[in-house]
């Protein structure tokens, strides 16, 4: 499905898409958060981009791990330790591999969800990035089991993530900064669920 060169390409697209959507993500964070999600994510991915040349020839596990470490050290908001742990756990799931298949990809996505849950102790339904991540991973798994191609199962994942983002509009935040605004968080989509969807779309864009 992917070799390490392609993983590097994917991460570059992620950085690009996050950069293009930085203002949009920050604006989503204004009514229910502290108006910084896009700024945070962009700062993190710019650092990732800067460090990519040094790790381009490493194995996929190392590339993902380094990406996670950069996010932890530069994002500056909750999305830093959360996405950082997600990438680091994803890297650990494919440690030493230069080539991965669809099953490895599922391992990566499950490890990422596990990382976010380990760090943030949230469940599905608390209006966080998990509300996009968990349905996306389930849809991807279903697609892989049905023998679909990467472009098909990634499209299924993106579709499920988008539905997850829509769902976040209907619920009250009980984790993270948005939990302070309580009921007033209804009607607003979660910034982190939205950024996850953009990251998954970045992967899908190359298939």
């Amino acid at each position, binding site marked *: 499905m992917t070799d390490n060169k392609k993983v590097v390409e994917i991460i570059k697209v992620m950085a690009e898409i996050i950069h293009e959507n930085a203002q949009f993500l920050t604006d989503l964070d204004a009514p229910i958060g502290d108006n910084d999600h896009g700024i945070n994510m962009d700062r993190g991915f710019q650092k990732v981009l800067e460090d990519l040349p040094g790790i381009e020839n490493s194995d996929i596990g190392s590339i993902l791990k380094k990406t996670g470490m950069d996010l*932890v050290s530069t994002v*500056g*908001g*909750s999305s*830093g*330790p959360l996405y*950082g742990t997600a990438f680091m756990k994803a890297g650990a799931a494919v440690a030493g591999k230069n080539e991965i298949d669809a099953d490895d990809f599922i391992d990566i996505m499950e490890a990422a969800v596990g990382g976010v849950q380990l*760090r*943030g102790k949230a469940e599905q339904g608390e209006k966080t990035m998990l509300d996009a991540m968990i349905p996306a991973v389930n849809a991807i798994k279903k697609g892989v089991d049905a023998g679909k191609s990467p472009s098909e199962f990634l499209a299924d994942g993106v579709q499920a993530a988008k539905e997850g983002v829509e769902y976040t509009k209907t619920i009250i935040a009980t984790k993270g*900064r948005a939990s302070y605004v309580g009921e007033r968080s209804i009607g607003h989509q979660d910034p982190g669920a939205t950024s996850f969807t953009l990251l998954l779309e970045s992967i899908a864009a190359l298939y």
Partner: protein
Amino acid sequence: MVGIVIVSHSKKLAEGVVELSRLISGECPIVAAGGLEDGGFGTSYERIEAAIESVYSDDGVIVIMDMGSSCMTTEMVIENMEGKRIEMVDCPMVEGAAAAAAESEGGSSLEEVKKAAMEAAGESKF
């Protein structure tokens, strides 16, 4: 003495808590890790790590955080400083820091300093 680190999204808030604690316990090794490198709001892995190292001794260090990423980032720093005596304390920042600093200055152990900070949560102000 047990070291104390105050982690906040705000540089000013972290420094203020340290300042206030030092008024009472001038000898206690208490430092701030507030805001980002550029002084903006947020939590910085590097600043927290450096702050812990700056007050670390065999007596150990306690870390008091504000909310959200302060706790998550501190947790990651501690995980990566394996084998050292560093503990996060879930307590009110101002009262917990003042109580912990006084306890530390008196030469108490890490457990006692932590307990003093935690007990600050149950005390009513008036």
